């Protein structure tokens, strides 16, 4: 790669001061994410994968080290609305329709009305929710609500999508379907996606790069560049390559965890 990485972190540390003493959430995290990458962060709870994502989003401040997003500080990137963030809970406003929820960031960012309408219908099509614009969140299933929240993150055309276990609360069948859709969406939009998960098959299926993390202190134990092709039918999960990567992820998780099992 000759272009500068979209996200670049060097020797990043983050220590939370708590009542029980300092907690080392992140220790010496160095990682480069290139444009168009689909990077999954996998690890047990407490390994800092969500914290790292929140540092990229300027929702947490690192205590040491450097990180740049789009070549600037996370704060500047946030203010430039460089990324869309998808939380584990869809978090749609019950008093707004699906369309109204997707409009929320657009209203805040001051898009004009016609532009808002066009963007809402475009991203609804992207997540296959066309025709649901006037529905209220409670009229949609959990999977559809999460798709609407992804549409909300896509609406303002940020190049980076940060996703914090977006499908963690959904059942496996819905999850498979959404994973497939997400890959299609990624292929169509060429966004850089950072995706936090604790499902090995999900990480292997989706990613071009898998970052394995371990807890106490949160650190990177392995970075796997996936040899899988960009075109990935669900059946790819039965291929020997897929199973081999899954093995390597599992080994990485086990290595990071060995001392406290």
């Amino acid at each position, binding site marked *: 790669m000759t272009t500068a990485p979209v996200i670049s972190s060097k020797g990043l540390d983050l220590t939370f001061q708590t009542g029980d003493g300092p907690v080392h959430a992140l220790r010496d995290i160095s990682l480069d994410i290139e444009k168009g990458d689909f990077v999954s962060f996998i690890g047990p709870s407490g390994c800092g994968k969500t914290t790292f994502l929140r540092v990229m*989003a*300027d*929702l947490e401040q690192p205590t040491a080290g450097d990180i740049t997003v789009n070549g600037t500080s996370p704060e500047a990137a*946030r*203010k430039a*609305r460089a*990324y*869309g*963030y998808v*939380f*584990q*809970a869809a*978090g749609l*406003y*019950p*008093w707004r329709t699906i369309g109204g929820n997707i409009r*929320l*960031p657009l*209203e*805040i*960012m001051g898009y004009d009305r016609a532009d808002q309408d066009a963007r809402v219908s475009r991203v609804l099509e992207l997540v296959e929710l066309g025709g649901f614009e006037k529905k*209220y*969140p*409670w009229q949609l299933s959990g999977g559809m609500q999460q798709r609407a929240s992804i549409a909300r993150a896509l609406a303002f055309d940020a190049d980076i999508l940060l996703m914090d276990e977006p499908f963690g609360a959904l059942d496996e069948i819905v999850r498979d379907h959404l994973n497939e859709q997400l890959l299609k969406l990624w292929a169509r939009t060429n966004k850089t996606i950072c995706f936090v998960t604790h499902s090995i098959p999900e990480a292997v299926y989706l990613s071009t790069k898998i970052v394995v993390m371990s807890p106490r202190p949160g650190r990177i134990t392995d970075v796997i560049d996936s040899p899988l092709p960009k075109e990935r039918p669900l059946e790819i999960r039965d291929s020997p390559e897929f199973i081999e990567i899954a093995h390597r992820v599992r080994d990485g998780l086990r290595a990071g965890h060995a001392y406290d099992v």
Partner: protein
Amino acid sequence: MRNALPVLTVLLAIVAIWYAAVAPMNIRVALDQAQRTGAVLEPVTALERQEVSVWMLMARNAEHLSTTYAMDRPRLPTPVQVGTELWNTTGDMVLNGRGMSKRSLVYHGWITLQSTLWGFALGTTLGILGAVAIVYSRVVDMSLMPWAIISQTVPIVALAPMIIVVASQLGIQDRIVPKAIISAYLCYFPVLVGMVKGLRSPAHAQLDLLKTYNASGFQAFLKLRLPSSVPYLFTSLKVGIAAALVGTIVGELPTGAISGLGARILIGDQFGTPLAIWAALLAAAILAGLLVTLLDVTQKITLRRMGMSG
């Protein structure tokens, strides 16, 4: 309709207890009156009867029991007597075109309602503004909140005359002003507390989401905090309007006011007409019930339209 049975059962139980209490409450007065009309009682003199329990008096003078249920100035009137008095001073007068006569509880209720609504509007406004200030400023939270709590520990009966005196010192002639202030004093607190909780109710993730949009504090307030607080606001408003009514009535008690439900209660006390007191009390209760129900219906409609019901 499934709820009708338990509701009716409780209502019947209250009425039954009320009726059962009328005879022992009224028997002494009833016997004193009967003696004046020449009845022979057991024991004979009023002085001797002081030493005997009401139960014994009821047992020994059973033939006078019925009079305890039909007295002009009973210690405790029967529900029917109160109902009749209420009808005579409201519906009956309205039917005769004297609804706004000074003897009509509709007129006095209207006077009280006006102060209540002014007080409610003032108290709600202050409560909401105070809550916004508390949520957005830690300094205000630390400095205002203790005073808000202290304000509610001062007995309103002690404070009411002072407010009225100060108001007249300031040359405010209109009686509605001090009454509305007292009413607002009682009403702002539940609104303040409820709104603080409501404005703080959005989850952390919700506020983080707005931060990722680089939303301003004012945008976060308008688009997230304010709508999120609506269910809390309505709950507080229902408590607040009842408190506002109580405040107005208390404001009418010690002030020499001659109109308003509170004034009716006071006048009924001074002139020894318990039926008037009870009718005014019942009118106040009905008024409070109507106001709370009105807010309740508004709440249900609003929350349903906001997709927040249940």
